[in-house]
């Protein structure tokens, strides 16, 4: 991915969305089938469950040029694997705090619950996140540059 050095005209945020197969991905699918419009800045990666997401995947995305990352899974109590999202929630609570503590801008990494029925909500969520990241400008902190 080509990384612009600064906020320039024509720059578009790149967002990586890790969506759980059972709810959020289906939600994205529904958004598409229902023809809800949302910005095209998001690249979706389908994963079995939100708990599958390791902090490494999030950090590596930011390192290699993503301006924002979204991890989305089933609402609490709806996990296909019963408790995957509960376990993920604890993990991300710590990660989220840690990233903020280190000074990584708020608004780069997002977590959400989106069900298979929430096509509209998915479209809105992506629209919101895209706009938030657009306001922040290109990611800087963890981006790998040749030194």
């Amino acid at each position, binding site marked *: 991915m080509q990384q612009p050095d600064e906020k320039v005209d024509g720059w578009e945020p790149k967002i990586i969305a890790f969506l759980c197969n059972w709810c959020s991905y289906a939600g994205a699918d529904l958004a598409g089938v229902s023809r809800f419009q949302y910005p095209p800045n998001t690249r979706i990666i389908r994963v079995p469950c939100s708990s599958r997401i390791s902090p490494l995947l999030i950090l590596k995305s930011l*390192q290699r040029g993503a301006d924002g990352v979204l991890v989305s899974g089933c609402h609490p109590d709806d996990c296909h694997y019963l408790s995957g999202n509960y376990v993920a*929630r*604890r*993990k991300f*609570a*710590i990660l989220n*705090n840690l990233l903020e503590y*280190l*000074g990584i801008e708020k608004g780069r990494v997002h977590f959400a619950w989106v069900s298979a029925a929430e096509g509209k909500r998915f479209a809105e969520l992506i629209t919101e996140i895209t706009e938030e990241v657009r306001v922040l400008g290109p990611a800087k902190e963890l981006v*790998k540059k040749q030194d």
Partner: protein
Amino acid sequence: MPDTSVMIRDTAKKLLDEKRVDLIIGFEKGTLPLRSTPCFVRTSQETEKLIWNASCENNLARYLRGRKEKVGIVAKGCDTRSIISLIKEKQVAREQVFIIGVPCHGMIDRRKIEAKLDGKEILEADEVTEGVILKGSGFTEIVDKAEFLHNSCSTCSYRNPVIYDALIGDKVEENRGIDEYGEVKEFEAQSADKRWHSFTNEISKCIRCYACRNACPLCYCQECFVDSSQPQWIGKTTNLSDTSIFHIVRVFHTAGRCVDCGACDRACPMGIDIRKLTKKIEKDVKELFHYQAGINLEDVPPLAAFSLDDPQQFVR
């Protein structure tokens, strides 16, 4: 009261003689002032080497994993907490270890003393009741030990062993009224820019020697993510982004497991303030999930558990 070193020797000797353990892991005199060094004792004669003083700073729990023999281990409060974490993670069987618990007054941070002496070299150090007598070429100074403890020691609230099979001497009084998260809170209060700046400034010193990882009793993954080639998570150079990710993820991996023994911080040759990161994780685990690592054998580790009403304000 008999000398702690002597009591440790007697206990170790007895354990070996009675064949209750095959190996004692403890400390012997180091080769430098203010230094002790881990030692491995297998015969009762060798127990004479064992010592105890304020420079027994290494966390010996690090040496427990993967052993077949029965082990006696000399353990401070923090070491016993690490042992508990290891037992919970099924890395060590409780019945395999005989814990020789030693109440601890805190360990001396020799770097702090060196900084105070500003280049003057310590050639001899003696611990006495009043403090530590430091001798060097052309100077003799006595310093107050309490002033030069490791940060993790001066805020420690588990100076007494949490579990043990034998206790050496009497329990010591625990620290009271100390805000162990003072430094973390101070850091939290700074602006994001400033925090990122000081984080990267620290990390830029990293030479990727992995002393922090290797000194940590809980960093025992068969294959550390930094060593994986398929996928290769991060590059191998000291590129700032790569080293930052190494430290972020390593610290994250200690969540609910780190007992703030300070081993990583002490091992770092470049003086990176690693504890500022581990302590934050420890604080969050306590605040979010009401869990403290290594204080009993019962509580389920926080990342292996959940509660229906865990905080989720950060989730959209």
